[in-house]
């Protein structure tokens, strides 16, 4: 059947024919794009639904409120409530006491909301239905009633009538589950109790955490905010439910973005795979392109035809990738939940929802990557000198162009963009720089290959000489085959160096920040459990305890409520703070009169744009603290920025003498286990606390670290496998094209083993080229990851550590894999009939 239109015949000759001609390579290219899109889409989906759940949960705490008045830490005086409720424009003011109640016998805490039932119904009408429909316990039991959210009941496996064990200080506090609220009422993992009970039971008498405000119809939120700001004391701020939801998801934003970017490395590698296969096809089909031009196909039409081939591969791969990504995300959520290791979404059980726009965006991304990968080969195809190519075919495959100026420009650009600030809080310039660096490396590869071949030692062995000669003669094929593996291997090297640096730094940090012999922790930031002063004194008097220090966690509001930071009050010597904290900056300047010394984490320094020696104010327990930054310290533990202040100063400002952590140094010769036993006997039975040695804490922190990075290892490995596709496709294309050459060699006496050895040497040579350029580029990329991407994403610095043995093993494995792939790809050609091969015209 003859084609009816020029488009049909051109599509057949220039697009579908070539795609069908090498089905293996076409399918590999589609698979590479599909895998990249699938991984990127799956990771994005899992992170997005988890973050959505966190945001929705945070939003649900506010019900139908338009605004909320919030106080950090211990909250604010309830005397403010009637004043605000009477403000013009405020229709309903619903007071809330919010406590992170420590769970007994379980990990973590439960958000307990103390609410005024009458008021809260006006902001969350569904409470009424829940209240009336709640199943009453069948028999009277001891304990206050609590209504659990559906998610809390599910995760705690409790139902109406069950007892919920909580802890305040070291005292147990039991609640009876009076009902389970419908999921729509309260999305967060929380429980609702009467506000008076909350104030009484959780030591918050006279205090409120928040006032949810519903504005009168027609009232201007701006005007109400203005009126509120005039009457609110320090440390109490106005917020909106949306801002709270946004703040909740902001904490994990850098982690989510970086993990999605890492997942997209596979797609990036897939793009280079498409580039290498299309470039190889262009070299192989020089005569076809020349013929089409001679017969009247314009260069513009040729460019479009080649790009169309790339687009078809991209769209097919992207569509498969979207379906596979969706399945992968569903599988991931079912198998391990929405938390991919870092702990940001631990316990979240989201439902996967597909948004068409997101799927379309990833689909377009996959197609765009494939088209971009095809662009340079397409331009080359359109510029093939027709007459020369018709006469000489693929003579250009041995040419090497150094592109020195282009490489220099690309690398200079890569360096220059590093000085740009983060975009929307994300290290996009760092990623652009990494992309440019990798592209520059790929462009520079011919020069590297030429340098390697010029220095190749001479051995009196036929396979060696033939392999070196062949690589010289097909230099462009060689560098193209290896470009995808260079991309993936360099990124794997970079990740390996970055992860090792981080792990080493974390380990050193843990040891430096844990100088005591034993650690006791009753609760964390905002949690209801703590040690009282009497308990601390009894701990101090235990036999074998030589020294004891305490610390207290809280939250403070900085810069008129624009930032919320974690506060750690610790016993430390201001003159020797570096003994306790890992200081990155310090100052010898004296503390100004009226100021208190504080040490802020790098995240806090970045957020507040402060350096050692600067002063700033923050609000603590309703009082303004004039703080002097005595040092900036390295912190790997907290998602938010941290302010460390002296314990005594904290007590002087707040009067709060409760402590969250106790650090114990043992007397010389004291038995660790004996001291632990005494502590267990001293603390009330059935209370929740953590008692750990530095060894255990170190082990736990490294376990958490490895769990966090486990997913990154998998993603990197997949990228390298895609890179190996490139070597497989390139080598098999070459081997097929060399059937006649092998036939001639067999005619003149080479054995199959010698041809196999030639192929193995060529494969190993390509692998070595990938390893050398990958190691060099990877080392540079790791520096960008460590000093730019991590610093801008997570605001922590780390010291560079290179996993020499792991990289050596990886490099060797890659070279061996490349050699094996070359030999396996050549088996088909070596099996062929030598006579037939020599006779072949095609």
């Amino acid at each position: 059947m003859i084609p009816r239109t020029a488009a049909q015949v051109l599509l057949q000759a220039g697009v579908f024919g070539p795609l069908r001609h090498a089905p293996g390579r076409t399918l590999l290219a589609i698979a590479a794009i599909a895998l990249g899109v699938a991984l990127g889409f799956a990771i994005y989906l899992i992170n997005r639904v988890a973050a959505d759940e966190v945001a929705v949960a945070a939003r649900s705490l506010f019900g139908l409120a338009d605004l909320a008045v919030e106080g950090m830490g211990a909250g604010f005086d309830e005397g403010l409530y009637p004043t605000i409720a009477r403000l013009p424009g405020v229709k309903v003011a619903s007071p809330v006491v919010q406590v992170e109640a420590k769970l007994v016998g379980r990990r973590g805490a439960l958000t307990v909301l103390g609410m005024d039932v009458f008021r809260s119904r006006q902001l969350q009408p569904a409470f009424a239905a829940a209240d009336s429909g709640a199943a009453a316990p069948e028999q009277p039991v001891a304990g206050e009633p609590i209504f659990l959210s559906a998610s809390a009941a599910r995760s705690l496996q409790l139902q109406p009538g069950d007892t919920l064990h909580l802890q305040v200080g070291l005292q147990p506090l039991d609640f009876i589950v009076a009902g389970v609220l419908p999921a729509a009422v309260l999305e967060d993992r929380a429980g609702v109790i009467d506000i008076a009970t909350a104030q009484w039971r959780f030591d918050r008498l006279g205090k409120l955490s928040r006032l949810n405000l519903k504005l009168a119809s027609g009232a201007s939120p701006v005007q109400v905010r203005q009126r509120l700001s005039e009457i609110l004391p320090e440390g109490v701020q106005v917020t909106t439910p949306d801002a709270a939801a946004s703040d909740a998801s902001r904490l994990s934003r850098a982690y989510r973005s970086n993990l999605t970017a890492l997942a997209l490395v596979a797609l990036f590698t897939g793009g280079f795979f498409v580039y290498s296969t299309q470039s190889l096809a262009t070299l192989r089909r020089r005569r076809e392109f020349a013929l089409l031009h001679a017969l009247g196909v314009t260069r513009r039409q040729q460019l479009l035809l080649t790009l169309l081939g790339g687009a078809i591969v991209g769209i097919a791969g992207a569509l498969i990738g979207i379906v596979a990504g969706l399945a992968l995300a569903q599988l991931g959520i079912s198998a391990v939940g929405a938390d991919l290791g870092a702990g940001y979404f631990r316990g979240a059980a989201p439902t996967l929802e597909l948004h068409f726009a997101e799927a379309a965006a990833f689909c377009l991304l996959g197609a765009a990557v494939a088209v971009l990968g095809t662009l340079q080969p397409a331009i080359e195809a359109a510029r093939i000198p027709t007459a020369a190519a018709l006469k000489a075919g693929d003579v250009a495959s041995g040419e090497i162009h150094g592109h020195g100026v282009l490489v220099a420009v690309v690398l200079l650009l890569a360096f220059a963009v590093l000085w740009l600030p983060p975009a929307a809080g994300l290290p996009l310039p760092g990623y652009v720089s990494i992309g440019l660096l990798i592209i520059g490396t790929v462009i520079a590869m011919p020069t590297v290959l030429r340098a390697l071949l010029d220095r190749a030692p001479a051995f009196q062995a036929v396979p060696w000489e033939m392999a070196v000669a062949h690589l010289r003669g097909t230099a462009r094929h060689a560098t193209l085959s290896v470009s995808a593996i260079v991309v993936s291997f360099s990124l794997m090297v970079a990740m390996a160096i970055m992860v090792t640096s981080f792990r080493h730094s974390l380990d050193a940090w843990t040891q430096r920040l844990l100088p005591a012999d034993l650690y006791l922790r009753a609760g964390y930031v905002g949690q209801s459990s703590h040690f009282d002063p009497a308990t601390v004194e009894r701990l101090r008097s235990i036999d074998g305890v030589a020294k004891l220090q305490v610390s207290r966690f809280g939250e403070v509001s900085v810069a008129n409520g624009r930032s919320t930071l974690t506060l750690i009050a610790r016993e430390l010597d201001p003159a020797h703070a570096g003994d306790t904290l890992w200081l990155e900056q310090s100052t010898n300047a004296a503390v100004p009169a009226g100021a208190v010394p504080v040490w802020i984490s790098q995240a806090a320094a970045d957020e507040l744009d402060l350096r050692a020696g600067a002063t700033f104010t923050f609000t603590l327990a309703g009082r303004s603290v004039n703080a002097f930054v005595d040092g900036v310290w390295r912190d790997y533990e907290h998602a938010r920025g941290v302010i460390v202040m002296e314990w005594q100063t904290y007590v002087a400002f707040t009067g709060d003498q409760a402590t969250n952590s106790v650090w114990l140094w043992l007397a010389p010769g004291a038995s660790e286990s004996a001291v632990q036993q005494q502590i267990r006997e001293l603390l009330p039975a059935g209370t929740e606390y953590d008692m750990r040695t530095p060894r255990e804490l170190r082990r736990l922190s490294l376990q958490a670290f490895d769990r966090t990075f486990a997913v990154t290892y998998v993603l990197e490995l997949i990228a390298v496998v895609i890179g190996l596709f490139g070597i497989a496709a390139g080598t098999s294309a070459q081997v097929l094209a060399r059937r006649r050459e092998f036939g001639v060699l067999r005619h003149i006496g080479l054995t199959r083993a010698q041809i196999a050895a030639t192929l193995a040497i060529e494969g190993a040579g390509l692998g070595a080229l990938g390893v050398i350029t990958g190691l060099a580029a990877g080392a540079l990329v790791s520096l960008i990851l460590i000093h730019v991407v991590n610093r801008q994403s997570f605001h922590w610095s780390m010291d560079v550590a290179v996993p020499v043995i792991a990289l050596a093993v990886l490099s060797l494995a890659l070279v061996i894999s490349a050699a094996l792939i070359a030999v396996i790809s050549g088996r088909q050609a070596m099996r062929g009939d030598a006579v037939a091969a020599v006779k072949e015209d095609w």
Partner: protein
Amino acid sequence: MLLVENLHKSFVAATPRPVLRNVSLAARPGDYVAIVGESGSGKSTLLNLIAGLDTPDAGRIVLEGQDLAALDDASRTRLRRARMGFVFQAFHLLPHLTVECNVALPLALNGISGPAARERIDELLTAVGLSDRRDDSPTRLSGGEMQRVAVARALVHRPGLVLADEPTGNLDAESAAEILELLRAQLKRDNAIGILVTHSTIAAATTDCTYRLTASGLAAIAAGSA
């Protein structure tokens, strides 16, 4: 009408190497000429210049009233598509198209389809003796068969000028004779200008007139078998 006037062409190397000097040629529809010369004398270069695949350093080429120098690459491509046909020594069939599709390619590129296209393709395939191989891949054909397909492709859209570069160079004597006869017959039937570049005196003898290309230009040496 093809008019070639005072063509000059040098190849740029360390020192420019002149290939063509003062080459002139005129041919009318129905003329079939051979160009012979030693290897490296510039025969293929002349053909490339006439086809618009390369540009001369001096001189001009006018085909059917259009000066090739006045056209850009896209316009020359369109002119080539509509008014020229090619036969190469190495056949140059597209491996991804069937025999029929290879022949149909120039028609499709010129927007000719439907019964007229089918009729013309049938006519050419019958003329070259391959009507029963129309659905085969070119890879299944012998060298002679491939060149017959190439001849059909070169003539299917009734070009005014057919350029043949050593069309029998890869063929045995019997196949070569068949191809040369076929080419001549079709050119005459369509009243097209034919330019045959060859080393072979036997091939040159099938044309109307033979020119020798030398360092000083093109010189007529013999009348052919017209």
